[in-house]
């Protein structure tokens, strides 16, 4: 495991927040995922050793919580809210727009490693539906036009060519 010194420091600090080490499982997994992007087998074993647990104790946690990823995701992780309030305001079309713009299906990574699109459940911002999170930033009232604009911004930043023509129906 090649974690940044800063991450290791935060890990040692966060373990002190709990009366039982095992409680630090989620915080450690968050810190590791923020550092290296996903949770490989090696990380599961490392966390287990650090918290004096069996690897299965950590593995079952990783597989339970949707935010922990076993494989790398795109550098831009686009999470479109799927649940009722957002759906009522058009989030299914917004999600399709992103898929078309980047030529990927849900949960895939674009070949250049830039983008993953996920259709997630309620993000607790239903009053400004539809909402989309891109990495840690929340975008509100995202209609199809705004989705195209956001996609263009990402393409410009990452130098991705528009893959619209190859998009699946």
């Amino acid at each position, binding site marked *: 495991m090649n974690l940044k010194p800063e991450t290791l420091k935060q890990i040692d600090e966060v373990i002190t927040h709990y*009366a039982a080490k095992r409680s630090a499982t989620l915080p450690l997994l968050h810190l590791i995922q923020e550092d290296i992007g996903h949770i490989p087998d090696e990380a599961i074993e490392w966390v287990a050793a650090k918290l004096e647990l069996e690897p299965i104790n950590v593995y079952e946690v990783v597989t339970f919580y949707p*935010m922990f990823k076993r494989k790398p995701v795109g550098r831009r992780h686009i999470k479109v809210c799927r*649940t009722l309030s957002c759906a009522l305001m058009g989030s299914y079309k917004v999600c399709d727009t992103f898929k078309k713009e980047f030529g990927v299906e849900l949960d895939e990574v674009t070949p250049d490693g830039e983008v993953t699109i996920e259709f997630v459940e309620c993000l*607790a911002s239903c009053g400004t539906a539809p909402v989309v999170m891109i990495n840690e930033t929340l975008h509100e009232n995202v209609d199809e036009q705004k989705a195209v604009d956001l996609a263009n911004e990402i393409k410009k930043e990452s130098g991705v060519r528009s893959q619209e023509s190859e998009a699946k129906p």
Partner: protein
Amino acid sequence: MQQRRIIFKHIDEPGYTNDLACYQRNGGYDVLRKAVARPPAELIDEVKKSGVRGRGGAGFPAGVKWNLVDRKSGKPIYLVVNADESEPGTFKDRYIIHQDPHQLIEGTMIACFANNVKQAYIYIRGEMPEGARILERAIAEARAANLVGPNILGTGYSCEIYVHRGAGAYICGEETGLIESLEGKRANPRIKPPYFPAVLGLYQCPTIVNNVETICHVKHIIDMGGEAFAKIGTPNNTGTRIYCVSGHVQRPGYYEFECGKITLGQLLNDVCGGPRPGRAFKAVIPGGSSSKILRFGETFTLKNKDGSTRTLAVEDIPMDFDTLAACGTMGGSGGVIVMDDTVNMVEALANINAFYAHESCGQCTPCREGSLWMKRITARMVHGAARAEDAALLKSVADQIPGRTICAMGEACAWPTQSYVEKFPEDFGNYYETKKTPRGADCVPLI
């Protein structure tokens, strides 16, 4: 209709920032200063007198909950603030956390002092990374100012608050699932009895779990006194309540009113501007996605105290806990989701069913299998493969879940199906008749 903003007093106020200096310029932490000079039992008494009911979903009186805490076990008592905010349609805690975090921290410290808690956690959903950072920064500021941590304000009383992030699972909002998650495990809820948090909670110690909004109310209760608080709102439904309105209204958003002093019709028409142009309301979910749906046009005949009866239309229902319950639904989390006449209820239910099937923790067969079946049936209806028996089958699956599961998610996942099928027979019947989606050109897909 005039809002009465107590909790949301400073939300969206120009120039109001979420740092300690701004909070203190506005009287912040004065209530904590006064509270720590009083006997803790007196503070619990104020909360009891206030009658404040939990804002997380169940509406359980906070004072009664605090009274149930086992104080003789010799074990430490924990307090956990439930900031999971995961019930679809609910979006109030988000604004408290992002814009006024010190209000929550002050409320937490008062609740901790009253209950002799030395260690509190704020469990915030994983999808609010910015909120978690804001809270951490605010706690650090408060610690530096001797308002959190060892020997606060020189009183000899010490209490730490830590922020704990979830990771995207709805069931972490259920209090015992939350506790399991805080212990570093899957968020599998625990069975009650024996695992009432007040007795056997975090690390099998007595634990208080309260919603963010409830904890903020505590600050104002101690400030104005329990009796004064009890005069706000309506009897047994005291204080203000934040209603989160989303879906098909002209002005969705968050609105704080005295509990029960506003009707559903006033909220949706006067405050939220009514339906979109050329549309009419069809249905409304009054308290988060799991509450039973209300159909515009239906009426409710309720008993008055003197034995007489009164009849209410959906628009006449006061937005309190008791009347909504008497109408067969609930005030729940305050999340009001509105649907107009463009919506087909089978599609809306298919959307909700997909949510619950995704979020069941899987421990109990009725919830795990039932939520999947309800999802599958509504999905096949929407996709043109409805069968004659589907409406009856949905009802029969849903009817077999409540009361047979470890946690209240069993009810939460069954109530939508039970109420949608019962109240919108024409939508559910049509699917079989036409074998295709009767979706108008101006409808958006919901599944």
